[in-house]
């Protein structure tokens, strides 16, 4: 009796300690990553670095083109992925009356979510850059990002379509509205925050993507307007970080880019969790 009770006590203490220690390690790890990047990069932050293009003549480096490229490519990819993703979610949740078609589409979305980004990069290069003749350009990169982020948008939109009470739809049908009208005027407006959350998550993924853009969007650091940039090669922040850190050994610039990326992912995470909490509250209400 007493032996087994000591055994139980030991078991209890070990498991409790293990859980606490592991959680502590995980949290400490995150804090280390964030603090390390921010503290190390502060000395290298100069206004010149974030507001100019790299120049061989003056032998200076600037990351402004990379920042702009990142913004352009996210904007373009979002513009394409939103209608596609929301449309698919609407089809699956509201229209689909053929279970077999629905199943195939669902399976494909799961597959898309599991494919690693390097494969997207290769196929994007084959299809968009070579077959469609777009060359290495931000547009080809944005198209690749669009396919990659479809599952994110579809999933979050589906989730929030599910939270719209069935009675809303029935009420609108009862007033004589047809399906598309019900979706447009009743269903979509009441799940707009879910779609916005999906967009934020997608922006986060696009911002952090690098392997898929290496071969589709290229490495150039030229400062262009939106439409010129779409047609020419350009490095995003992540690709620039890779090139500066790994191939050119410019750690000062790499630290600044890493800090910018870290700051952006912090901002995106906070926004997404605030929104998610709001949706949760509405669901419970």
């Amino acid at each position, binding site marked *: 009796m007493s032996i087994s009770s000591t055994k*139980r006590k030991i*078991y*209890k203490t070990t*498991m*409790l300690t293990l*859980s*606490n*220690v*592991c*959680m502590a*390690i*995980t949290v400490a790890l*995150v*804090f280390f*990553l*964030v603090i*390390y990047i921010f503290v190390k990069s502060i000395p290298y932050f100069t206004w010149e670095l974030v507001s100019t293009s790299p120049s061989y003549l003056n032998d200076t480096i600037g990351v402004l083109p990379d920042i702009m490229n990142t913004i352009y490519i996210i904007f373009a990819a979002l513009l394409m992925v939103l*209608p*596609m993703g929301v*449309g*698919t979610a*609407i*089809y699956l949740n509201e*229209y689909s009356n053929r279970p077999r*078609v629905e199943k195939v589409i669902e*399976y*494909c979305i*799961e*597959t*898309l979510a*599991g494919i*690693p*980004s*390097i*494969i997207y*990069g*290769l*196929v994007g290069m*084959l*299809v968009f850059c070579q077959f469609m003749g777009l060359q290495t350009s931000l547009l080809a990169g944005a198209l690749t990002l669009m396919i990659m982020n*479809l599952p994110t948008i*579809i999933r979050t939109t589906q989730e929030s379509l599910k939270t719209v009470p069935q009675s809303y739809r029935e009420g609108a049908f009862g007033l004589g509205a*047809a*399906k*598309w009208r019900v979706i447009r005027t009743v269903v979509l407006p009441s799940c707009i925050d879910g779609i916005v959350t999906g967009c934020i998550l997608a922006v*986060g993924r696009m911002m*952090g*993507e*690098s392997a898929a853009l*290496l071969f589709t969007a290229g490495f150039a650091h030229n400062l262009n307007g939106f439409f010129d940039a779409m047609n020419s090669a350009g490095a995003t922040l992540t690709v620039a*970080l*890779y090139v500066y*850190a790994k191939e050119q050994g410019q750690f000062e610039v790499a630290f600044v880019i*890493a800090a910018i*990326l*870290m700051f952006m*992912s912090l901002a*995106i*995470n*906070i926004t997404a969790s605030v929104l998610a909490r709001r949706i949760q509250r509405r669901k419970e209400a």
Partner: protein
Amino acid sequence: MFQAEKKFINTEKIAYWVFLVLGVMNVGFVLMICVYLLLAGSPAIVKIGPLDFLFGTQWASTAAQPKFGILPFILTSVYGTIGAIIIGLPLGFFSAVYLAKMCPKKVRMVVEPVVDLLAGIPSVVYGFIGMLVLVPAIREIFGLPDGSGLLAAIIVLAIMILPSIIKVSVTAIEAVPEEYTLGSLALGANKVETIFRVVVPAARSGISAAVVLGVGRAIGEAMAVMMVAGNAANMPYSIFESVRFLTTAVASEMSYSSGLQREALFSIALVLFAFIMIINAILNMLLKKGIKR
């Protein structure tokens, strides 16, 4: 009146077809990826010979007598993934148990976003920190000429798969019905025993799904690994060896490749794709099993 009704029906029909087409386009994308990979990847496998390609131990794509054996990459990817799971799974599993069952609500409000942040950090940032912190540390501790290699890659991968493992495991643990806990407590088990001997076994399939998801993440990661693994096409005989993964083998030579070498790179991608499809199938099976029960 009649005209208006006709127009109304048309819009409805158009809307239906537009959404159907948007949905079916997803299927098109998957087919496009499969077809292009098969078209681009199979010629080199045929030319080199499937056995020589898959089980050749030497990769010398730019030599005068080029050799295209990808066994080093396959083994590295497998070892790297197993290593990442060995480190990442216990860490993630116990963290998930803590989050789901032991932690006060207020702590959870803080810790959960922190774990989410881990998922949001771009992979190049992991690679960069790995390059600057981990690689020199490994060099110092083990007294090696160069710290970049399999071990560094394993540690970076283990950290990168943590958020997936934690999130999916938490969901699985929380899905276990409250009655199980209550029953176990009523029989005299203490809280910790209840968690680890009743709740966790009941969440088994969800937790295995978390592992498989982690495997998928780890095997597909390219950039972070490329920055810390050393990138020499060696067989992974020791954990300090400078190695290439399937993903980094493609990425590191793509930009200057040509001819058969380029075709062989696509074949590597095809092999990687095959791995991923198998992992996805297992994942789907596990998730379905979890839902059914």
